[in-house]
């Protein structure tokens, strides 16, 4: 089972797509590891994750930090700090 990855705002623009399904190796078990693994895929992903301090994440629609666990079947979203309201 894959991980569904969503991108929002400028991460979406830099990656060039709103979402993708990925199947990282089993040792990719946290948000931070997944981000690093995605960043290493190609230049577009690298650009999206180039400023780790500006990247926030959610796992299954709950805000999550880099140490939060991820597993196949999860929905993981990456985005900049929110600016609604």
């Amino acid at each position: 089972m894959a991980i569904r990855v969503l991108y929002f705002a400028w991460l979406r623009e830099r990656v060039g797509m709103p979402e993708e399904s990925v199947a990282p190796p089993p040792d990719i078990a946290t948000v931070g590891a997944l981000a690093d693994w995605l960043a290493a895929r190609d230049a577009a992903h690298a650009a999206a994750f180039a400023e780790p301090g500006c990247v926030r994440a959610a796992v299954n629609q709950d805000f999550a930090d880099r140490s939060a666990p991820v597993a196949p079947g999860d929905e993981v979203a990456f985005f900049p700090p929110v600016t609604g309201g």
Partner: protein
Amino acid sequence: MLRIAVQAADFAPGEALDALAALGGGGIGCFLGVVRPPVACLTLEHYPGMTEAAMRRIAEAAVARFDLLGCVVIHRVGRLAPGERIVLAAAAAAHRGAALEATAFLIDWLKTDAPFWKKERLEGGEERWVEARAADVAARKGWGV
């Protein structure tokens, strides 16, 4: 009473206030955010599903914390022109203090805890993603928790 909406369509603030005024409280607080020049166009993106859940959590926290009779949070998405309404946060309580504090709480938390992102196009045509403000993070932290 809890009314949460994420929508492209405009909304009528008066209707939200009427609904809250009907709950038997003495005070209703309200904040209305509008697109402010020199922004020529504002585009609001959100995370469908998570957005509604986050807004509901924020509204429920406000109801519990300020003993509200109800609250309304409406947030628009999509493209908005200057002067257009973006967001409404409103709260009904027995007295004015709780109603106004809850209103500030709702909008402070929305700024930091709901997955919306704003892209501005300025009058010169330049586009940029709005950056999160340290002041918003500080306002959110001021509520504790």
